[in-house]
């Protein structure tokens, strides 16, 4: 049963960092029980990334950041890093060179991207799903090397991919369908999606993502000990996690967002033709233009507000009003 290191494939980690300026500002306020600033967070993440790279020489990483309205891949192990930064190696002569290169590249690109943000009145929605789809495209390319690559080079064993999302923003219900599609693609590619919720309420959709792909959803109780969470929960590969005691998700909410108002609901009205979800009975499906029979509408309308009417409908309690 013992496998040597060379038997198991290397690990690939795609890191997605939610860089919403507003949320990070709120997170760093002193009113929080444990304020966590972006600077502090980045430094801990860099240690984590170094640990991941150090645990095996052919481990790879890709770092993507989600910004309001856009998303960028800022670092990938397969990229060649231009040594354009003028920091002479002597500055940090005691650092392992690849780590230093990676650290400086990541920090520099994050600075650039944050600096390039426009300071509007309202923040555009965060491009988290876009970053997720890009990470999946990248992983697809890594795990399925195709003929377009030079055939003369021996194909290395495809790495064991996983995705880690650092989330600070609340759920974005407009991104429900693309996010679900990404989750199913991740299932097909056998990619585990880990989620570390750093700030704010639990997000229903990311919980589902972690649950459906076999990843971890961790909402650290003590954010000042973030590095420890990272090292204990997210550093081990999915194979090793089976023998370790990992934090489990207690309640997974399988709620969905309705198509009409993008509310997150627990009882919905479903079009039988296209399975669109609505938060209240509607006469016409907005997605497929199906007209629903007026009888059904009346029945559902009656059913909804009053608990005692329609005994034959077997309603034990009213549907919650939202």
């Amino acid at each position, binding site marked *: 049963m013992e496998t040597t290191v060379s038997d198991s494939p290397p690990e690939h980690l795609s890191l997605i960092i939610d860089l919403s300026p507003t949320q990070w500002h709120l997170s760093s306020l002193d009113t929080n029980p444990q304020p966590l600033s972006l600077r502090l967070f980045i430094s801990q993440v860099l240690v984590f990334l170094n640990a991941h790279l150090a645990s095996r020489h052919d481990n790879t990483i890709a770092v993507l950041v989600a910004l309001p309205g856009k*998303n960028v891949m800022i670092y*990938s192990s397969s990229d060649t890093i231009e040594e354009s930064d003028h920091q002479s190696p002597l500055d940090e002569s005691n650092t392992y060179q690849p780590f230093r290169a990676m650290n400086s590249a990541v920090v520099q690109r994050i600075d650039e991207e944050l600096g390039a943000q426009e300071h509007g009145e309202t923040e555009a929605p965060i*491009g988290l*799903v*876009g970053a997720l*789809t*890009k990470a*999946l*495209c*990248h992983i*697809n*390319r890594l795990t399925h090397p195709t*003929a*377009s690559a030079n*055939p003369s080079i021996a194909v290395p064993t495809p790495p064991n991919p996983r995705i880690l999302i650092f989330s600070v923003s609340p759920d974005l219900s407009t991104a429900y*369908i*693309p996010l*679900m*599609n*990404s989750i*199913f*693609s991740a299932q*097909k590619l056998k990619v585990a999606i880990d989620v570390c919720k750093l700030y704010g309420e639990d997000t229903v959709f990311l919980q*589902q993502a972690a649950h*459906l792909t076999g990843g971890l959803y961790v909402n650290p109780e003590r954010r000042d000990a973030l590095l420890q969470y990272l090292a204990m929960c997210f550093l081990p590969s999915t194979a090793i996690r089976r023998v370790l005691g990992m934090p*489990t*998700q*207690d*309640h*997974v*909410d*399988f*709620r*969905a967002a309705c198509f009409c108002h993008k509310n997150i609901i*627990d*009882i*919905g*009205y*479903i*079009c*039988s*033709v*296209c*399975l*669109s*979800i*609505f938060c209240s*009975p509607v006469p016409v*499906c907005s*997605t*497929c233009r*199906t*007209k*629903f*029979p007026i009888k059904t509408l009346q029945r559902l309308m009656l059913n909804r507000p009053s608990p005692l009417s329609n005994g034959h*409908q077997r309603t*034990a*309690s009213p*549907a*919650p009003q939202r």
Partner: protein
Amino acid sequence: MPPRRRDGAYVHNAGTSSESEGFDDIDDGNYGDKRKNKGKGKAKDTGKGSQDKGKGKSKEQAYAWEATYTRSWDTVQEDEGGSLQTAVEDLLARGRRRRLLEPSSAIRRTIIRHLMLLLDLSSSMLDRDLRPSRFDLTLEYSRQFIVEWFDQNPLGQIGIVGMRGGLGERIGDMSGNPQDVLKAISDRRRLQPDGDPSLQNAIDMARGSMSHLPTHSSREILIIYGSLTTCDPGNIHDTLDACINDKIRVSVVSLAAEMKICRELANKTGGVFGVVMNEDHYKELMFELVPPPAQRSASRLTGGSTNFSADLMMMGFPTRLPDTSPLSLCVCHSQLKGEGFLCPRCKAQVCDVPTDCDICGLMIVSSPHLARSYHHLFPVKPYQAVTETGLSPSPKCHGCSHSFPEKPSATGSDPTTADVISPLGRYRCPDCEKDFCADCDVFVHDVLHVCPGCQ
């Protein structure tokens, strides 16, 4: 190519129909050019048209042995470097073209599906013209089909009926749980082929087990038929009329040759009919039935009055309880259990979803079940092949961040593929106008169903 030539056998299969235009599109996808000169047998007279894949050429060449012998491997051209890259790209282009022809707008599809799988278990299934045998291959493909079908139709249900010894035999009841269905066909010995098949008995049995279904769900029958005869107690055309009345869609995959009644069953009920050419084609024919059918095909047949079948359903999305939660009795089995799902309306604990809550009758589904089918509703638009770059092309693919090749490949200049294969290896989304590489193009449309640029 293995020396499995079934052509001769089919010349004897008289009494089958010759209409088989339906196959053209399948052929053009993969086999087209390489095979089209091999008109086998007399299409019109002996009526084995389906075997020569409905090519018009077969009508000119009377018999297979009169046709010029084509060496299919000669049509694969090596390029100057001696590599098969060109041929591979050509195949890719065909795949792309087929996809481009598909409608990208939202169409109505039935999503709550009910399928009866009718397996031929007659002695003709013991034939070994499909490796390892028709029977084993059918079981193997059925398993794959069921897994894939449930993956794409999570709210659907499948039942299985066998045709053996002149009877319809119930093998697996209608079930929404893939494991139950797979278990029903897991025992190979229990399904050992024997005797004659009876189409009528099996269809009647399938029809009976679907009679109670609500109107908004689809009723489908998929017949895997290896025999060339059917042994019926009555008039099978009555059964056919009954299927039309019940709006049951019958699709037939024939392993031997085309039979008039099979094609009629498929045509008149809006289903698909296909004759298997080889093992891969068998799988292709079967898996074409995995995606939910568009509803317009049904409406055309029933005269357009489809709206009555639509309905608005109330569904609840449960909360999942973890293993570690305090034990409580589940309402479905009355067992003490920690894990389970909570009905959002009455807070009763049920073991598995999708189900109807035993307390309040609410249909409980987990939202991922619903979401699995949304990509059918909102497909990604096909990307356009970029033939010339603008002033400042992006250096990297927007999806995977790999660099694009700097100079155009020579192979892409072929005018037949220019509209679908980009010489630059760039494919552009019409909406967000970002460029993607060929790999990402395929991945986005086949798996991801989300354009990374538009998000």
